[in-house]
């Protein structure tokens, strides 16, 4: 059990749920959490609600608040069941409380049958690319799908250079190989905390926001006034980056 495997941890989680029969099973909505929780719910025939921002019980009912459609719509759903409910909670959605006194840890020995393990851990692979480390930069100018084509990257580079910063990107751009994976800001990429973060044509999906929300100053430029990036940004501009950046560069140089 030194390394996570869906099968090994799944067996252990099932054994604990069976003997403890809890009302609610909370799991973090991380790549490991949403690997474990849905399979547990499926295997034990339990109700499941995932990626929750908030949870509360109203009598027998569990009420979950979730976000849909690129954060543009919020929904409340309710689940009632006599069985334990599995829920995953989005990281960062709840402020951790301080330590409370008086808790106890119950250790439950569980038996794992290694002959029943159908997934086997092989290794952890680390990215090997030689590139600048955007996590160490004071100023990061990131490009998203709003730059429309790869040919517009030099504009972002020029803007970053004018500010003395480096170029980052949202996931779609590194997926398309416009920039190396090392430049990706977000949950599956780098977490950055620069003095200045400029989001150029980035809508602000939760995976991206997770990697940049702690920057000291965030400026967002996007054509869509309802883009969720404007919720985390300190300064917002509804504009086409391809028009705004050249005009701003001209101003900065004058």
């Amino acid at each position, binding site marked *: 059990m030194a390394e996570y495997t869906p099968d090994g941890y799944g067996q252990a989680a099932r054994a604990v749920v069976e003997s403890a029969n809890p009302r609610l099973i909370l799991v973090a909505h991380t790549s*490991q959490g949403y690997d474990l929780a849905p399979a547990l719910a499926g295997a034990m025939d339990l109700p499941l609600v995932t990626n929750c921002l908030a949870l509360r019980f109203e009598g027998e009912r569990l009420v979950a608040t979730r976000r849909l459609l690129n954060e543009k719509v919020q929904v*409340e759903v309710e689940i009632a069941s006599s069985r334990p409910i599995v829920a995953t909670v989005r990281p960062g959605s709840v402020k951790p409380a301080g330590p409370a006194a008086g808790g106890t840890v119950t250790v439950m020995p569980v038996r794992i049958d290694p002959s029943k393990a159908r997934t086997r851990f092989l290794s952890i692979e680390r990215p090997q690319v030689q590139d600048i480390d955007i996590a160490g930069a004071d100023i990061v100018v990131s490009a998203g799908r709003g730059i429309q084509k790869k040919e517009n990257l030099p504009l972002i580079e020029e803007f970053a250079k004018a500010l003395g910063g480096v170029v980052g990107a949202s996931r779609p751009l590194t997926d398309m190989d416009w920039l190396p994976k090392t430049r990706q800001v977000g949950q599956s990429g780098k977490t950055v905390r620069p003095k200045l973060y400029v989001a150029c044509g980035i809508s602000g999906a939760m995976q991206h926001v997770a990697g940049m929300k702690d920057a000291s100053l965030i400026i*967002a430029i996007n054509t869509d006034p309802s883009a969720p990036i404007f919720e985390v940004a300190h300064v917002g501009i509804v504009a086409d980056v391809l028009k705004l950046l050249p005009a701003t560069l001209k101003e900065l140089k004058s």
Partner: protein
Amino acid sequence: MPLNIVVCLKQIPNPDLQFQIAPDGKDIKRDALNYKLNGADEYALEEGVRLKEKSGGRVVALTAGPKRTEQMLREALAKGADEVIRIAFDEAAAYDVGKVSRLLAAAIRTMPHDLVLTGVQSDDLVNSATGGLVAGLLGLPHASVVTRVEVKGNGLEVACELEGGLQRLYSIALPAVLTIQFGANTPRYAPLPAIMKAARQPIRELSPAALGFASWEAVPLPYTFAVRGLSPPAAKGHAEMITGSVDEQAKKLAQFLRDKGFGRR
């Protein structure tokens, strides 16, 4: 080793659009939406077709959804699926991922399956739950956020993405369920002759009876589920906006950057 591959697909409203909430507050307005194949599912389909091309076998694309999903299924045929199946579950919104996963699992039980693939998440409901639920319901091993799949002996070797750009490698026995990550491959464009051919191919439909249910309402669930209501998200905060024409915005932005000590003079 020829593989019977089932790829679960979902048709979603294009999430780049603006959405309005329906008068009853239980769904978005759906009358004028533009639908597309879910992003991560595109990569799942491509991965399935590539595995078939390498190892032999068959790719069946499966969805649960209303008639409009036929357009997506024809796209799947044109991109290399051998057969497409629609579970005729007509609920337009289908907010309960548990129910949809039980329908998919019931359908998969009726067909040969060495490997079940789906996308890591749907961009409309963002549950990241379908693959895991289906695996659990079928009692199959699974791996999530998969970026690489290789057939090794009687099983697979897969790379799963973790936070921070790390990958965890597993070997996994077949049959298995994998959720495929964005960017795992480069999805192909459908060639025109294949699109023409796909337009004439049949789409198999599965009724509740075909899956052993009296009706879609009678699918046994260990819980009750209800949508309480949709609302515009309560903004956590909002940026101070720089307004005006592009030139005015540029002027103000440049001034702001200078005032904060950024940018060369």
